[in-house]
């Protein structure tokens, strides 16, 4: 079966981690995996630039990590389960990190979740939203 990687393009505000994305993000995601050890977490947090320069990542990916720009990390091939090692190293929760990718503050995001989460209406299609 021929793969259709573009079938996901119309989902608003969503980056699907495809095998192609995984190829582009390989070194970024492997850097994240290295943060599973406490020793590496300490070394990374002590001098982020030096630690990142040990990896074959693009400058754009390195800068996105330093800026904690998770959307940019997704755009350049990162996957959120890998990226979670970055925010876990700083003791942040998924809710705290994930909310930074939305247009809400963490408090607003948590309030939305407590009220039942984001309603899907209006979030099915970029075309419907006039974004495509």
């Amino acid at each position, binding site marked *: 079966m021929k*793969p259709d990687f573009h079938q996901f393009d119309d*989902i608003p505000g*969503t980056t699907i981690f495809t*095998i192609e994305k995984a190829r582009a993000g390989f070194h970024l995601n492997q850097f994240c995996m290295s943060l*599973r050890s406490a020793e590496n977490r300490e070394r990374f947090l002590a001098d982020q630039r030096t630690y990142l320069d040990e990896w074959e990542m693009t400058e754009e990916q390195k800068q996105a990590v330093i800026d904690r720009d998770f959307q940019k990390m997704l755009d350049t091939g990162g996957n959120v389960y890998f990226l979670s090692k970055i925010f876990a190293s700083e003791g942040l929760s998924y809710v705290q990190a*994930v909310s930074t*990718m939305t*247009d809400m503050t963490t408090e607003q*995001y948590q309030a939305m979740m407590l009220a039942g989460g984001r309603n899907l209406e209006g979030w099915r299609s970029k075309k419907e939203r006039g974004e495509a």
Partner: protein
Amino acid sequence: MARISAGIATSHVPAVGAAIDMGRTDEDYWKPMFDGYEFSKQWMRENTPDVAIIVYNDHASYFGMEIMPTFAMGIADSFAICDEGYGPRPVPVVEGAPELATHLAASLILDDFDMTVLNVLEVDHGLTVPMSLMFGTPDKWPTKVIPLPVNVVMYPQPSGERCLSIGKAIRRAVEQFDGDLDVQVWGTGGMSHQIQGARAGLINLPWDKQFMDDLINEPEVLQYKPHLEYMVEAGSEGVELIMWLIMRGALGEHVDEVYRFNHVPASNTSVGHLILTPKEHS
């Protein structure tokens, strides 16, 4: 003869593990969710299996991007607990069931399911949070475990059809095992959730409930639901629900619904939980 006595479905939210580990289950935020599992813990005390085949996904905890197996099986004597970035969860080591696991892995490969065989595996919250929800906080887990990690992280994930089929093959293989074992199959992950991008926080409870109904009554139809629909309707991480189809496939044609529970939210996720048993002679 070994037999499959029940199927369990449950979400495996990491924050649920953290709440248990930090003794926060009685807090206002968490109590309603944990109350929903009280029945299940009691039921499990009365129906503890010899072996639980736990279908789950690794969350970049043990598997990096070097190797991404579609279906894998842990056949080791035991499985250590991963450090997911906060240090390992303080839960007991997970004991394996190597005799049944080697039989299962071999049976599945001979049935054309090309399993990746894992002689070493560390398990993450995807596997241990369901165990904590079903067993509480014992000093030693009361059941042996065969981990069955599935790639649900990188597209293409296996199709729903493939997941239901491997469940059916697991049932055949368990029934062909020479040994008197009570075996459960657990499908974990889901329900609707999205933890990335501007659409993060998406929850679709009506869709989740329909999925449960269809899983119970119409798995032969549900298996054809495309990945795209999971991702649009249940969020990019909602596609984990294909793992519930593996559990369902292992239960035979008809099932009895012993228990059902839904709760929103746990962290970013819609929590769903089922206990199903195979109907006799199905």
